[in-house]
């Protein structure tokens, strides 16, 4: 027989004025299993807690119901008090007499009875409570950051400076990401590479950071604190240790006409190349799809010329498996292509470009060395039209969300253009100007007021080529919908920011959720923005939603703080409110039949497969197992399980059934 103590709190007048607490305490004495029942003015006060602890000892109580305020308020308080009296804290439950009874009902018999009912339910529950113990999970103090853009670099640096090892994985040959492609940055117009390059170098030289460029995550097993990550190191066809980065191979490579990804197709590169001069690491890779040797079996010019003999044509991809404690995703974004807009001629005109292409045109390190030349004929464009929201906020053809960065970079582009072509005319078609941010609106105003950029609020319905010009037909909605026609030399579409190539596959590899658009889903939109719902995996930057640089960096530091926090203990302690698959003696082993219908019900990918083997190693039964490191205790699997093999500690079937039987 249980020995349960019931402690009814008056909460001053809060409960006491409406509920007859003395009577409730008296009524509770009659509940079978209740060994002690008392009421007190302020249960949560020091004397209150002390009284409770003494009663626990004196009456040898093994369970406690505190009838007071909401458990959301004081459950930790009373559980701690109970624990200090030597009873397992999970043997304490709270009946909510204040928020759910005295504050919401009128004084009277019915309210007092309800209060007693609320206690009765929990007394029956507690008879089925079991002592629970916090779950401890060991932690490997090495983080992996996936994506080497500005976000990834920031995460890596912050964690590394916090004293922990970081592996920074980047799929392209160099870290730097999109930011390295930008000309200047809003709202300060400082040179993007000038501020980024030092960070890149710092990351490369940091003793706690291991760079794995030209590498991709192939497989992730395990769980928080204990991931096993397999990374594919793609073959650079080069011995990185021998290569000095002298660049001779690049100069002499005969194959020079390859469209250059870094310059967004506006320039060319060689088959053996570094993406850009400031690349980190400054070691080339051979593009095997375009290399003459791989196509014809002849050439090998680079091999012949390499002063250190670093070229390795036979090099293969390498798979490396690493023990990792936490993972941060910082895989960034891509821009929607210009060819999805039929009304803009499917991007067939070379002079209709996207924002990133404009960055390259405006960049001093770009294909035109920063001189404004339009791609079709190299002429200086006299009139440039910028179209914001190309594909963004467009339910029919594009994406319904706002891409967030375009208002700002469009203003920047128009400004940069005007700075380079003083006589030029710049027009911006926009829907709304969303310039919320420090110095952002001022920046846009500057473009309009000081640099004389013509802002037209309206959409562009059509662009067509006529006599070497691009005729942009739009409407000015602030002029009553007046049609506007601009004969431009170049059009820049601020195309939508989209989730990066392969992000859905990566999400599946890591078992994190993603939204309809392929952006990774945060664990909570407001309160857990840098966590995913898979414990131990965090987010930074535009892989979660469109983000600009300052936000990305802020989020990166946030994610880094989460990782460093996680790494601050040898073990991870978690609430034992987790689901458990029951285990039984042979021959049943468990009520689980291994149908795995629960698998997709788990929001946390916490359900694993467990094989029961005979002594000879033969698989007798395959069961579900819930990883207590990943389970958050929602109980969705419990309700899904037909055989009731899964139960939720703290809210078990027996507990809830007992509560229901009391109603």
């Amino acid at each position, binding site marked *: 027989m249980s020995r349960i103590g019931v402690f009814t709190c008056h909460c001053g007048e809060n409960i006491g004025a409406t509920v007859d607490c003395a009577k409730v305490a008296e009524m509770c004495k009659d509940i079978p299993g209740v060994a002690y029942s008392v009421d007190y003015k302020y249960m949560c006060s020091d004397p209150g807690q002390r009284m409770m602890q003494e009663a626990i000892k004196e009456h040898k109580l093994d369970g406690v119901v505190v009838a007071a305020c909401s458990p959301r308020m004081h459950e930790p308080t009373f559980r701690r008090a109970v624990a200090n009296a030597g009873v397992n804290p999970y043997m304490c439950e709270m009946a909510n007499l204040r928020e759910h009874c005295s504050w919401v009902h009128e004084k009277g018999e019915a309210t007092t009875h309800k209060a007693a009912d609320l206690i009765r339910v929990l007394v029956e529950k507690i008879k089925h409570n079991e002592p629970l113990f916090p779950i401890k999970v060991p932690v490997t103090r090495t983080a992996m950051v996936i994506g080497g853009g500005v976000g990834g670099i920031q995460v890596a640096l912050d964690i590394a400076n916090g004293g922990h090892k970081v592996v920074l994985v980047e799929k392209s040959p160099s870290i730097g990401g999109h930011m390295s492609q930008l000309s200047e940055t809003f709202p300060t117009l400082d040179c993007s590479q000038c501020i980024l390059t030092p960070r890149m170098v710092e990351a490369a030289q940091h003793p706690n950071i291991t760079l794995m460029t030209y590498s991709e995550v192939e497989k992730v097993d395990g769980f928080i604190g204990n991931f096993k990550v397999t990374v594919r190191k793609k073959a650079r066809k080069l011995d990185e240790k021998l290569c000095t980065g002298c660049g001779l191979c690049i100069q002499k490579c005969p194959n020079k006409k390859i469209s250059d990804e870094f310059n967004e197709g506006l320039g060319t590169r060689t088959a053996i190349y570094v993406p850009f001069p400031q690349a980190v690491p400054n070691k080339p890779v051979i593009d095997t799809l375009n290399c003459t040797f791989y196509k014809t079996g002849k050439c090998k010019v680079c091999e012949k010329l390499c002063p250190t003999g670093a070229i390795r044509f036979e090099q293969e991809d390498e798979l490396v498996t690493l023990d990792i404690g936490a993972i941060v995703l910082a895989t960034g974004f891509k821009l929607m292509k210009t060819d999805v807009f*039929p*009304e803009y001629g*499917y991007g067939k005109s070379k002079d209709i470009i996207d924002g990133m292409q404009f960055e390259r045109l405006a960049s001093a390190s770009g294909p035109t060395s920063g001189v404004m030349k339009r791609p079709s004929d190299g002429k200086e464009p006299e009139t440039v039209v910028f179209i914001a929201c190309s594909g963004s906020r467009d339910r029919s053809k594009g994406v319904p969300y706002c891409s967030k960065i375009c208002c700002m970079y469009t203003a920047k582009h128009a400004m940069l253009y005007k700075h380079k072509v003083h006589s030029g005319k710049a027009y911006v078609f926009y829907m709304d100007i969303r310039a919320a941010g420090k110095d952002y609106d001022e920046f846009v105003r500057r473009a309009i007021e000081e640099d004389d950029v013509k802002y037209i609020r309206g959409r562009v319905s059509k*662009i*067509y080529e006529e006599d070497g010009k691009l005729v942009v037909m739009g409407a000015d909605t602030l002029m009553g919908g007046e049609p506007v026609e601009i004969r431009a030399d170049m059009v820049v579409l601020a195309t939508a920011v989209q989730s990066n190539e392969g992000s859905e596959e990566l999400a599946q590899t890591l078992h994190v959720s993603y939204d309809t658009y392929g952006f990774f889903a945060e664990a909570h939109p407001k309160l857990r923005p840098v966590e995913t719902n898979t414990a131990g995996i965090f987010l930074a930057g535009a892989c979660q939603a469109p983000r600009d640089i300052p936000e990305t960096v802020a989020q990166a530091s946030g994610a880094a703080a989460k990782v460093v926090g996680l790494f601050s203990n040898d073990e991870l302690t978690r609430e034992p409110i987790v689901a458990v698959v029951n285990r039984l003696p042979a021959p049943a082993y468990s009520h689980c039949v291994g149908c795995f219908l629960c698998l997709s019900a788990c929001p946390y990918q916490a359900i694993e497969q467990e094989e029961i083997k005979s002594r000879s190693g033969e698989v007798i039964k395959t069961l579900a197992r819930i990883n207590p490191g990943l389970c958050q205790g929602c109980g969705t699997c419990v309700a899904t399980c037909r055989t009731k093999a899964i139960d939720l500690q703290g809210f078990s079937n027996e507990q809830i059934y007992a509560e229901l039987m009391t109603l």
Partner: protein
Amino acid sequence: MRIGYYPGCSLLGSSREFDESTRAVLKALGVELEQVPDWNCCGASSAHILNHELSLALPARILALAEQAGLTEILAPCAACSNRLLSAQQELEKHPELKAAIEKAIEMPYQGTVKIVNILEVLDRLKDRIAEKVKAPFTKHVASYYGCLLVRPPRVVNFDRPEDPQSMDLLLKAVGATPVEWPFKTECCGAAFSVTRTDIVAKLSGKLVKDAVNRGADAIVVACPMCHSNLDLRRAEINDYLQKEYAIPAMFITQVIGLALGLDPRDLGLHRHMVPVEFTETAGVQS
């Protein structure tokens, strides 16, 4: 193949040649047309701006009559008519309470089961047969002009793509024509101002005519009576406005196909055009 037919007012008036050529071509392709008995105006140009109930009742009556006649599908060659019929049908489906009110107004039951098709949809189904029967390939450069109503709003018409549609281009290719790359396929011709503001028509349609010629088209092909009357009937105003003499003819798609099938130009109503349908060396060229 047998199909219901709703000519609408324009096809009995200003665009008789659309009616004639539609009937002629479909007859040649073995399609029987059964006219909706006692049909009325669909309310196209004005009803929907003036009286919502009327704008639903007029098309509903036509559709109800078609149901009574046992028709499951009706062809409305006029783009405005088919657009109105579709809009009304969809709205009544979404709002059962409106449907009850409209049934009372038109004094007959309305189910909304009749499928409404435009001329391009019908011709598209017959494309193989057309290609087989081509006698005189129409080896001209053409600008296919869809106008506003055939493909828009996409949720209502649910036909072809709203930007850069293709169905007419493909039909024209099937009869030997070469469609030019043309950005103005769905630009407005100024339809509703055909009578009241011919200056706007001249400007809007002028742009179309000029660009079609610039891109080397020998003819502008249309599938809407409004478009046609603006491009044809208002050519004088257009030319005045542009200070040019554009002689490029505007033809209905049914006329082009009719010619390719070897039908008599008179049966296709070609003689009714204001801009003569002649393809001399200079026909499309500005003088």
